[in-house]
């Protein structure tokens, strides 16, 4: 029994992550060609969630931001870490209009290296 307990302990110690991820927990679309990166480069994370009606809620890493704040944060990030990758996260049912808005903000800020977060199907 002690052997089993040790085995379970080692399992949970290896699979659990102690560091809290700086991103909201949301469902993601499934992709057949996306790959889990072996080494994740330093990158900024934008999460978009639908808010009642036609609005959206934006998260810059784990911080809630308005559209205007997000535009400012993107410009700031583009100045400080030019060329840094930007990870875009949104649920499968998020409409294109939300991404259109974000992509426009990214273009204005000069961020061109964009990546969608997905789950492997």
């Amino acid at each position: 029994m002690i052997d089993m307990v040790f085995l379970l302990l080692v399992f949970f110690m290896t699979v659990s992550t102690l560091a809290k991820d700086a991103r909201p927990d949301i469902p993601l679309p499934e992709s057949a060609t996306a790959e889990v990166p072996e080494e994740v480069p330093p990158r900024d994370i934008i999460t978009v969630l639908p808010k009642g009606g036609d609005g959206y809620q934006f998260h810059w890493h784990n911080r809630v931001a308005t559209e205007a704040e997000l535009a400012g944060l993107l410009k700031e990030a583009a100045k400080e870490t030019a060329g840094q990758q930007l990870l875009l996260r949104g649920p499968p049912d998020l409409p294109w209009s939300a991404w259109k808005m974000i992509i426009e903000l990214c273009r204005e800020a000069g961020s061109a290296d964009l990546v969608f977060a997905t789950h492997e199907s």
Partner: protein
Amino acid sequence: MRRRLTDRPEIPIAPMIDCVFLMLVYFMTTSSLEKSEADLAFPAGQAGIPADPLPAVDEQRLFAQPGGHLLWNGTTYRLDASGTALLEKRLLNFRDTCLQAGSEPSLRIEPEDTVSHQELVTLLDTITRSRIETIHFP
């Protein structure tokens, strides 16, 4: 008094087992088996930055519509298993034709506002499989 030879020193393992159980319960309650997030890259483009020198580009426009439909060259494709297989085949043909003609195959994706993220990802998957690397969004 002499100690008997059979008396061997013993390590008390009961406190260790208590600790191990405590740690086991802690990790079992705090850990969550989450799926890893995978990256799907796509170009955003930058306004006002011309490509120099300009390559010979053959661009096609793909209109993504809500409900998992795609309009390309007058044909509507469903973004399901059979529809994406047919689309992939035709995109591969388009790519080969462009390369044989010495031009670069390019796709301009124009989704309607209500097209869902999952539909867009499925379309990007199909384009990735067709090995067309140049895509644009409006």
